[in-house]
């Protein structure tokens, strides 16, 4: 494409990309491209429901955390009435950032520039020299913090910058069935173990979101040490077993790995398994009792993973659950946010044990995590190369495979777990967003 074509916009290229995705081809350049990133910022992160926080991060009135949707800093707070609300982290007077810490507790936010004061629910309540300076010209009701629409599911607070966006329920479109494996581990639900760790990486957020949409294919190679030393209860021979499910047109997907011969719900303590028989539906129990690994993504950039980890090869070990946000910073650059979710009703001993397994496997020093980012940064770098601009990748695995007819859950399910089926849906949804009219 010449420079002249570029100046006419990226629309013709998007049409080609969409056609290619339907046939199982994805262009390499999307993983490191300024124009694509600019479109994502506006048409994808400006329209989708984006994860903000877990309710357990702000349990008391006044608790807040600062998060982002694309390049917008957002304050997520629990107000004095216990309601969760989100506002742009920007004073309405001259635009200074209101909260500069990651988390805290405050009934009010005071701007450090000219001193405008807002309640944590966003109302403007204090304006220095209000009478002397503004006469009657400033209507405080009009100048509260800019509200970001929020909705929650099972502890997850999402926000959208689009006032016209459909409800979160509609957006998730049945994926709640699968999210429950992470969020309803027992009757008390899940909670974060502590503040997330976060770090920056020269990686495009989409590579990671794709990986967590069920890339079972990379595991035996990228994480070969885990198989080799026996810390991962699956072998190269059985690893492809299981199911891949996505919600058509929504972009959400999950890979459910299965290891034959393992007891149901292996790696969870008995009391938790008992509780899950009440917190989950019979259909969910049928699916999840057979699941070794559940790795899934809520479109666009929130992912989850449950897997067992055992220091003693051959034993079920312990289950940990990580929740991660692939926060875009620029083309080929992101900030990783990583939490450990633990079952709220579990014993403190189990929570600690699960957390330790998480840090060993999937925190930023996690032995599995380290290798993923090593690969992803190299993919990103290659995708920015000039020759890569005209290249495509094959996404044809499982292209003509029909969905399972007797699958107990919602969505489009195929077997085995190792397939590109979820990814074609992911990229199709992604391209649909980018091609939408404003």
């Amino acid at each position, binding site marked *: 494409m010449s420079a002249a074509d570029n100046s006419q916009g990226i629309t013709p290229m998007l049409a080609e990309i969409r056609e290619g995705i339907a046939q199982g081809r994805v262009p390499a350049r999307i993983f490191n491209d300024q124009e694509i990133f600019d479109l994502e910022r506006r048409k994808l992160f400006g329209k989708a429901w984006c994860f903000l926080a877990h309710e357990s991060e702000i349990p008391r009135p006044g608790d807040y955390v600062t998060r982002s949707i694309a390049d917008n800093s957002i304050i997520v707070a629990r107000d004095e009435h216990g309601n969760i609300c989100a506002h742009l982290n920007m004073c309405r007077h001259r635009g200074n950032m209101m909260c*500069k*810490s*990651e*988390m*805290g507790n405050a009934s009010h936010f005071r701007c450090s520039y000219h001193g405008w004061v807002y309640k944590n629910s966003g109302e403007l309540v204090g304006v220095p020299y209000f009478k002397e300076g503004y006469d009657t010209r400033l209507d405080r009701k009009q100048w509260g913090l800019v509200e970001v629409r929020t909705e929650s599911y099972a502890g997850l607070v999402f926000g959208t910058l689009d006032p016209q966006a459909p409800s979160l329920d509609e957006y998730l479109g049945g994926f709640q069935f699968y999210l429950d494996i992470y969020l309803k581990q027992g009757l008390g639900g899940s909670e974060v*173990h*502590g*503040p*997330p*760790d*976060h*770090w*920056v*990486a*020269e*990686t495009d957020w989409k590579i990671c979101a794709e990986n967590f949409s069920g890339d079972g294919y990379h595991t035996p190679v*990228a994480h*070969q*040490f885990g198989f*080799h*030393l026996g*810390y991962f209860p699956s072998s190269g021979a059985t690893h492809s077993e299981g199911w891949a499910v996505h919600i058509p047109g929504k972009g959400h997907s999950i890979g459910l790995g299965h290891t034959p011969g393992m007891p149901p719900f292996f790696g969870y303590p008995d009391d938790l398994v008992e509780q899950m028989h009440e917190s989950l539906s019979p259909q969910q129990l049928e699916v999840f009792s057979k699941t070794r690994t559940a790795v899934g993504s809520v479109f666009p950039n929130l992912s989850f993973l449950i897997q067992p980890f055992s*220091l003693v090869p051959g034993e079920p070990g312990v289950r940990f659950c990580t929740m991660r946000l692939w926060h875009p910073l620029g083309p080929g650059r992101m*900030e990783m946010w990583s939490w*450990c979710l633990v079952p709220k009703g579990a014993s403190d001993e189990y929570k600690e044990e699960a*957390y*330790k397994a998480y*840090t*060993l496997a999937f*925190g*930023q*020093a996690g*032995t599995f*995590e*380290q*290798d993923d*980012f*090593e*690969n*992803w*940064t190299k993919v990103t770098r290659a995708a920015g190369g000039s020759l890569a601009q005209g290249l495509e990748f094959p996404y044809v695995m499982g292209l003509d495979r029909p969905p399972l007819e007797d699958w107990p859950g919602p969505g489009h399910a195929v077997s085995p777990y190792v397939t590109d089926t979820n990814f074609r849906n992911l990229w199709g949804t992604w391209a649909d967003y980018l091609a939408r009219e404003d």
Partner: protein
Amino acid sequence: MPLQAPGIDREVRESVRDFLYRESLALDERRFRDWLAAFADDARYEIPVRVTREKLAEWELSPTSRIFDDTKETLEVRVRRLETDFAWSEQPPSRTRHFVTNILVDATDHPDEFLVRSNCLVYRSRGEETAPSIFSAQRRDLLRRDGGSWLIVHRWAALDQAVVNAHNMSIFI
């Protein structure tokens, strides 16, 4: 902590300092087995998550979140992993240099155990990257006298960055 602390035997101070330098050398020369041998069987190795907070907040090093949260057994897992051909994040390996300064030795309730504070700056270079990762940390080690040498009973290292500018932590502090 008072600026003038009760004196510690000069020989102990010099021996501790020498030990920390040799330990750093083992890490920088990737002699991870030698390094692991310097840990007591009941050792703990932890790096807390730092959180950017307002000045009056109760803590800024998370009481619950850790980047590393290891026992000797799990450090052994990490070292065993590095000994395989599949530790891709260290293939080719990081080049590290540990700079250890400001070593302060204090007595504990136990005559054979000392609390050792130090500053640690780790320079890490990878592949052809010209920009290194630099980790600055405060370390607090509990060292136990073991015959003529020392064992690390507890290493606690707090990074000064809240958002670490490295795509992974496949090295040790």
